[in-house]
């Protein structure tokens, strides 16, 4: 849950903004002036500031000047007491992220907070001289490969990039799979399970080198999302069904049910309820472990296209295939994402994520290549940044 700093001289305005921020699911850090707010910056680490001010006041500009030294990229939203487009323009030119006109409400402030927390600016990276040298070598080799391509060798294989990367002694964080159409992912605490819709099979993999430990063919189902729940493996399969498998050597089918809310493309179990996503309708469903997984509650999915779900022991996480992000959801209020972590490896458009699994410290995702299944499927490991893990 993100902390939102509030600066308002007037106690009534401060209370009003605090209520709205808390209603929207954030934690409010109120302050009566800039000095108090900057003190809170060191202890509470708010993700942005909302400043209440009238047209004549310049609290936002002063705050921006102070933040220039302390936290230059922290967004500032100004809640104006009067609606003045000209003043709003001045503030935005000065660097204010957004200006909210009165009356202040969850409806008017909510989208601004959401946008400010998600809208990323220029990405910057510090490259050490050693890495820079290696980078030059990398580009040289890549240019050479392209030259080879230009004179007639048509098979420029993207694996060469991987080989280059491997040569830089970086930890391996992605692995090609020996099949092309992965459609679901689950972790049983020891091994990774991947379903493949084309071969209609379930593969278990070693978590270290991802070698295949076991393959089980499902002649009667096209497996997709899956999860472990109540000593069984639950699989959302086409056409529109839920299959319950015993966890024996052959994954014997012990139940085959019509899906009460098809088509489930994501699935996870929180120890009490089973959760699925129907991305066509953009809904998350909370379900009980009965025949067909009856729905007890449904929520609007707070992203573009939920494609996978997992549970980290405290909260739900979903993979938003539309915005290429991981979203964290409180069990009590899953319709609001309390954290969003970008997944840059999916930004290039080469991979379509289909599955998600959690282990302490990070996540695995599995993906099918774009165009569909032209190359082997791939598993990625995503480390959770330490500062992100802290405020879990």
């Amino acid at each position, binding site marked *: 849950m993100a902390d939102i700093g509030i600066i308002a001289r007037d106690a009534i305005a401060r209370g009003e903004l605090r209520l709205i921020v808390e209603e929207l699911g954030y934690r409010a850090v109120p302050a009566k002036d800039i000095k108090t707010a900057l003190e809170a910056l060191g202890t509470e680490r708010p993700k942005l500031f909302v400043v209440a001010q009238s047209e004549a006041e310049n609290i936002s500009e002063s705050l921006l000047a102070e933040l220039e030294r302390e936290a230059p990229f922290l967004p500032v939203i100004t809640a104006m007491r009067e609606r003045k*487009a000209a003043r709003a*323009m001045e503030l935005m030119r000065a660097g204010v992220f957004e200006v909210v006109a009165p009356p202040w409400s969850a409806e008017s402030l*909510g989208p601004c907070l959401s946008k400010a927390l998600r809208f990323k600016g220029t990405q910057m990276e510090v490259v050490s001289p050693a890495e820079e040298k290696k980078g030059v070598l990398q580009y040289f080799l890549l240019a050479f490969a392209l030259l080879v391509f230009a004179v007639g060798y048509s098979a420029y294989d993207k694996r060469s990039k991987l080989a280059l990367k491997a040569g830089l002694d970086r930890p391996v964080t992605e692995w090609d799979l020996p099949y092309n159409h992965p459609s679901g992912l689950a972790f049983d605490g020891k091994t990774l399970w991947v379903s493949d819709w084309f071969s209609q099979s379930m593969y278990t993999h070693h978590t270290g080198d991802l070698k295949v430990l076991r393959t089980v063919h499902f002649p009667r189902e096209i497996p997709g999302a899956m999860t472990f729940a109540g000593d069984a493996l639950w699989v959302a399969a086409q056409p529109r069904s839920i299959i319950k498998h015993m966890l024996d050597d052959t994954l014997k089918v012990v139940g085959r049910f019509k899906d009460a809310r098809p088509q489930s493309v994501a699935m996870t179990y929180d120890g009490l309820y089973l959760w699925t996503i129907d991305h066509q309708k953009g809904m998350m469903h909370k379900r009980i472990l009965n025949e067909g997984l009856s729905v007890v509650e449904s929520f609007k999915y707070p992203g573009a296209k939920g494609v996978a779900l997992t549970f980290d022991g405290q909260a739900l996480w979903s993979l938003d295939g539309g915005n290429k992000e991981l979203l964290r959801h409180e069990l009590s209020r899953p319709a609001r994402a309390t954290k969003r972590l970008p997944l840059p490896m999916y930004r290039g458009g080469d991979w379509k994520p289909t599955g998600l699994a959690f282990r302490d410290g990070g996540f695995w995702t599995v993906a099918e290549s774009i165009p569909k299944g032209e190359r082997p499927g791939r598993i990625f490991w995503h480390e959770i940044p330490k500062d992100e893990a802290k405020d879990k």
Partner: protein
Amino acid sequence: MRVSAARFIPASVRFPESEARQDAWGRILELQSNRARFLTRTRLEKGDRLSLSFDLPGEPMKDISAEVSAGERDEDGYYLCVLLFSDSADRVRLGRVLQKILVRS
């Protein structure tokens, strides 16, 4: 040739044909001499006519007539619209200013 500004350009919006509508504001995500992609909290729909004012380096652009040619609400609740500049004189002037900026960049 394209250049990127250091930050998004804020723009104010007036609705000269609808006095009941309040002035609004937003930011320009992309700008060409004949169109702009515009992000705002104000509800804008296809066919809406408006006047856009914004500052380009050294050149204020005031009351540029535009029509919303496409618009959609994003997942945050903002309206992302394509604005077509309807006045040819505005387009010529904007084109000249953009040309200057591109040459200097």
